[in-house]
């Protein structure tokens, strides 16, 4: 028992030391600051808009601002909002729709820079990406959108904006605060994000925010929808479908004709009720019974086949629900801690753990566990799935080998010895008590 305590003390103190070194406590207060800051830009933005608009009405009275109305102001876990409005005749109308909820988005830039020919290795990160962001484009653009869809995973959000003429509507994400870190090989090995680079100027921020929009929402269908119907007299209608499983809270809608010609935003409140719960870190609303029963089934199956549930749970979670892989990896891992801990306790009671061997290899795995989580955020979901597929094939081969006759014969012999040892251990424990 003493050994266990000693071990725990060592690991905990080591962990605390590392936390201090990495400045997680400092980082946390930074996080708090960010959340306070989140409030202000909205207010400031609104103020800005108003003043801008006043100026506009002063300067460009020729182009009137579009008007916008919605048929309802509240939704229950998604629904359809019909938007109607009036815009100057013959102009294209875009609807910019975003959620007030903010989520994290990150992108690791390791592509060769066209100008310098070098790989920049910069990690872009924001905590202010709207949990929902979509630009509704005129129906006439449907074919263009199809073209972009056909490009597959390599589509570019900024070119798509240009091709669809939607550049004028893109404004909310361009103002988010983006942190960027210069990653180095050494930094990644010791597990730091790298050096925080100075803030970008407005233009650069806008460009990077577009890439982050793609990193967060992945497919063109998630950020564009060709549903705005414009009639000759300038009236327009659009069906805004807020899907199930999106963030609760306020959704803002704004009609945009030109960069300077925008309507005031109108808001729709989306409420969700139990058993749907919004995961703030993941930015997704889920019916909690889904993951509950999935992890129940998988963990039963996992115990039966002698492997932890994580192998199957992680890929299924990212495939079924729109969850970021970083959150899935980071949240599933602690759930196995308990079963591992109780396993160790049970084996240690019957003296079935070789501490020298376990700790020696354990120390090596601590180093590995320090590096791994850093790498999770550097890969995309597609890469995550692909590598996981390869891992599962190796695991399947391992399992298959465990059902071959040769292995079974050997295993039977060892199981006999194992039982013998267990018996002895139990007797020894009883003798101690008696």
């Amino acid at each position, binding site marked *: 028992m003493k050994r266990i305590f000693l071990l725990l003390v060592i690991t905990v103190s080591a962990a605390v030391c590392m936390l201090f070194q990495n400045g997680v406590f400092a980082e946390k207060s930074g996080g708090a600051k960010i959340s306070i800051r989140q409030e202000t830009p909205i207010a400031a933005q609104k103020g800005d808009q108003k003043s801008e608009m006043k100026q506009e009405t002063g300067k460009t009275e020729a182009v009137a601002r579009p008007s916008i109305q919605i048929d309802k102001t509240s939704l229950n876990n998604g629904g359809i909002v019909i938007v109607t409005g009036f815009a100057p005749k013959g102009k294209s109308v875009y609807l910019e729709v975003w959620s007030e909820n903010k989520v994290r988005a990150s992108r690791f830039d390791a592509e060769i820079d066209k100008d310098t020919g070098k790989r920049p290795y910069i990690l872009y990160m924001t905590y202010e990406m709207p949990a929902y962001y979509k630009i509704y484009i005129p129906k006439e653009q449907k074919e263009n959108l199809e073209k972009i869809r056909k490009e597959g995973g390599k589509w570019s959000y900024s070119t798509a904006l240009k091709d669809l003429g939607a550049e004028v509507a893109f404004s909310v994400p361009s103002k988010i605060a983006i942190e960027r870190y210069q990653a180095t090989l050494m930094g990644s090995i010791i597990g730091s994000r790298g050096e925080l680079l100075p803030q970008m100027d407005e233009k650069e921020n806008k460009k990077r925010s577009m890439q982050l929009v793609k990193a967060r929402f992945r497919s063109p269908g998630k950020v564009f929808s060709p549903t705005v119907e414009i009639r000759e007299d300038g009236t327009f209608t659009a069906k805004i479908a807020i899907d199930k499983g999106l963030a609760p809270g306020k959704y803002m809608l704004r009609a945009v004709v030109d960069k300077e010609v925008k309507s005031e935003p109108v808001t729709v409140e989306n409420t969700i009720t139990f058993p749907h719960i919004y995961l703030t870190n993941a930015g997704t609303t889920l019916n909690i019974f889904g993951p509950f029963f999935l992890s*129940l089934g*998988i963990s039963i199956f996992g115990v039966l086949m002698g492997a932890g549930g994580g192998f199957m749970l992680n890929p299924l979670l990212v495939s079924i629900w729109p969850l970021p892989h970083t959150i899935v990896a980071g949240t599933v891992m602690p759930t196995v801690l308990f079963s591992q801990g109780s396993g160790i306790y049970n084996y240690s009671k019957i003296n079935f753990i070789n501490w020298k061997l376990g700790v020696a290899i354990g120390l090596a795995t601590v180093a590995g566990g320090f590096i*791994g989580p850093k790498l999770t955020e550097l890969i995309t979901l597609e890469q995550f799935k692909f590598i996981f597929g390869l891992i599962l094939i190796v695991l399947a081969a391992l399992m298959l080998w465990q059902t071959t006759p040769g292995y079974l014969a050997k295993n039977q012999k060892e199981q006999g010895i194992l039982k013998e040892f267990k018996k002895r251990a139990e007797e020894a424990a009883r003798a101690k008590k008696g």
Partner: protein
Amino acid sequence: MKIDFWGHEFRVNVALGCFLGFLMAIVSSMFGFGGGPFMIAIMTVILKLPMYVSVGSSLLAIFFNTLMGTTRHYQFGNFDLVFFLVMFPAAILGGFIAPQIAKRISPITVKRIAVVGLLLLALNLLGLY
């Protein structure tokens, strides 16, 4: 390194074990699984230890990894408390139900089903079907 297990002595190449354990830990913490089967495979196949030595000690070895990985994921903001609270009780409940079922079915059948399931899932992830 020599290790002693209930009066039996084994010789183990710890350097190799540590190196492989290190690599496995990177992958397992990166993708968020425990890694028990891989650790047992390393100990039994490569370090040539018998199963009965591996079961307990491999658990201890990966426990370190999981503890560190969890801390690091938390540090990078990858941990969602609500999501955790949904899955954690399910995992514990599963741990209680599973032994009841295990008495009734043969582990070999389960493993064969698992092989098929894993392969299907793997092919799906690789985008092959």
